[in-house]
Each structure stands twice: as C-alpha cells, then as structure tokens.
C-alpha cells in the first residue's frame, strides 16, 4: 500500500511553512491523491496507471507549493512569538511609559528626575507609579494569554518594561564606566550607588508587575483567538 502522505511530504519538504502546517497539508493532499488513485483502480486501471493518474493531478509541484505558500503565508504575517510575547510586552512597556509621563505632568514632582546617580523618587508618586506598574504587568500577561501564550511568554510580557529599564541602566552604566576609565568624566562614579535605582526602578516595579500578572500566570488555559 502506497504512503501518499509521505510522498507529498517529500514533495513539499522545501516549502517555508511551519512543520505542523506542512504536516497538515501533506495529510490533506495525500488523502486526496489516495482517493484519486482508488477511484481509478475501481474504474479498472492497472496499479501503475492509477498511480500515474493520481500523480497527474499535479503538473508542477514547485508551482503548487508556491501557490499554497502564498495562500498560507499571509495568515502568518505575525508569528506566534510576536503575538504572544513582543506585542503584549511592548503594549505593557508603552502603557508604563505613558503612565510615567502623565504622572510627571501631574506636578507631584519629578518621578524619576535627577541625575541617575542622585536618584530621587517622591513617595506619593512612587506608590501611584507602582500601582500603574501593577496594571501594566497585568495588561502584558493578559494580552499574551489572549494570544495563546504559554506561562513563560506571559511572564516575560509582564516584566518586559523592567527588562528594558535594566538593560538601559546597564548600557548607561557601561558607557559611564568606560568614560571614567578614559578620563572623560564621571570621577565620582560609585557602583554602590546603583543599588537604589536598580531596586526602585527595576526590582520593586518588577515585583508589582509580577503581582499584577499573577492571575493570568496561574490560569493555565490557553485562550488563543488567532
């Protein structure tokens, strides 16, 4: 008995589609060829003639794959990682940034004002900001779950803002350290003073975001809408 699915799998091996999608296409086209073959056998054709007859359904496999790829490709303008991780993470990040700008304009005093190494956060603003971060974490995790993201993607989406801030602080500190080493300034750079900004801007808001994300992390069901 011929393995039509395998035959199609070999023909479509080089098409650029996700493996699961290729498998599904191979199963569907394979079953179609199998039915054509069986029908021709029922009509009295020899096995080899029926086989040739089934294969004649496709004159040019490369052209067929190009058309199938075109038809399937646009479905996946955004891959799963984009939908489940980057977009929710960016949504959370930009919401956090907007909250920060809004809070700054509410004239409670500078939220993250002052030079990096003389960090100062007014307490009221800070608490309000943490509440906003709580909501941003929840938003990131919710959007990721809505797109069918696994718990790891929801977690990353929730704390994406803190990751960006930590990365930014690391880069800025690196630049300052390099400038100091080259004698270009920052003569009073003290790495011990970085602890507080890291705690206030990364660790504590990260914990708030994580707390906001918690209901969406514990819920293990994937509710993909894609």
């Amino acid at each position, binding site marked *: 008995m011929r393995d039509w699915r395998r035959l199609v799998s070999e023909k479509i091996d080089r098409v650029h589609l996700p493996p699961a999608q290729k498998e*599904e*296409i191979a*199963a*569907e*086209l394979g*079953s*179609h*060829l199998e*039915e*054509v073959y069986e029908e021709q056998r029922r009509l009295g054709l020899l096995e080899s003639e029926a086989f040739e007859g089934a294969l*004649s*359904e*496709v*004159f*040019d496999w490369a*052209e*067929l794959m190009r*058309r*199938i790829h*075109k*038809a*399937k490709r*646009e*479905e996946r303008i955004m891959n799963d990682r984009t939908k489940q991780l980057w977009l929710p993470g960016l949504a959370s990040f930009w919401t956090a940034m907007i909250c920060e700008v809004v809070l700054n304009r509410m004239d409670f005093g500078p939220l993250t004002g002052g030079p990096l190494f003389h960090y100062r956060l007014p307490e009221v603003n800070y608490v309000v900001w943490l509440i906003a971060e709580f909501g941003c974490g929840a938003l990131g995790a919710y959007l990721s779950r809505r797109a069918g993201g696994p718990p790891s993607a929801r977690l990353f989406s929730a704390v994406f803002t803190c990751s960006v801030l930590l990365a930014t602080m690391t880069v800025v500190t690196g630049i300052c350290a390099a400038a100091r080493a080259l004698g270009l300034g920052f003569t009073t750079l003290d790495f011990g003073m970085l602890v507080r900004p890291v705690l206030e801007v990364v660790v504590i808001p990260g914990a708030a975001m994580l707390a906001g994300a918690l209901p969406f992390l514990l819920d293990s069901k994937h509710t993909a809408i894609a």
Partner: protein
Amino acid sequence: MTTKRIRAKIARGSAELAILSLLARESLYGFEISKRIEEESGGALRFNLASLYPMLYELEKRGWLKGQWQANNAGRDRRYYSLTPEGRKQLAPLRREWRSFFQALDRLAEVSRA
C-alpha cells in the same frame, strides 16, 4: 490586460462561485468538492488537486471557509470545509455579479441564441 489574464480572472472568479455555492449546501472535503463540481457541471468544470487546494486555502484565509478534520463515511480522517457566516454573506453579491456579467455578455454576443 492580456487575454490570458482575463481568462485567469474569469476562471478564478467562477471557481470561487462554484466552491462557495457547493459548500452553502453542505460541508465537503477536497476530493468530494472536485467530484461534485465535475458531476454537477456535467464535466464542464473540473478541479484537480493543483487548482483546488490553493483556492480552498485562499478562501479559508479570507475567512469565508472553515476547514475541520473529521472522519468520513469510510472512517478516514478528512478535512471538511464549510461556509462561514462571512462566506455566506459573500455568496449573494458574487452570484449577482456573475448574473449581470453573463447577461451583459449575452446582450453583447447573443451567447444564449447562438
């Protein structure tokens, strides 16, 4: 526009209409769709694998069809296609367009009296 392009557009449009009309009645899988179209058109229209599946995937991408794996009468798994509410909504204007197209062609070339 070349004759070849016009022919391709007509073939594509008629194929869409044929598939949607058929699936408006019942859910069918690929091989059944090609057989039914061939039978019901008296052999005038014929889809092979290469012409049928890209069209089905395209219509599915537009959200007009929905494919779902189910066992057929012989107990084999087949991907059954059914019309979505959006596809059903598209069918009526598509039918109207084709009707007016044939009427226009008939007035012009007197096809029905030939």
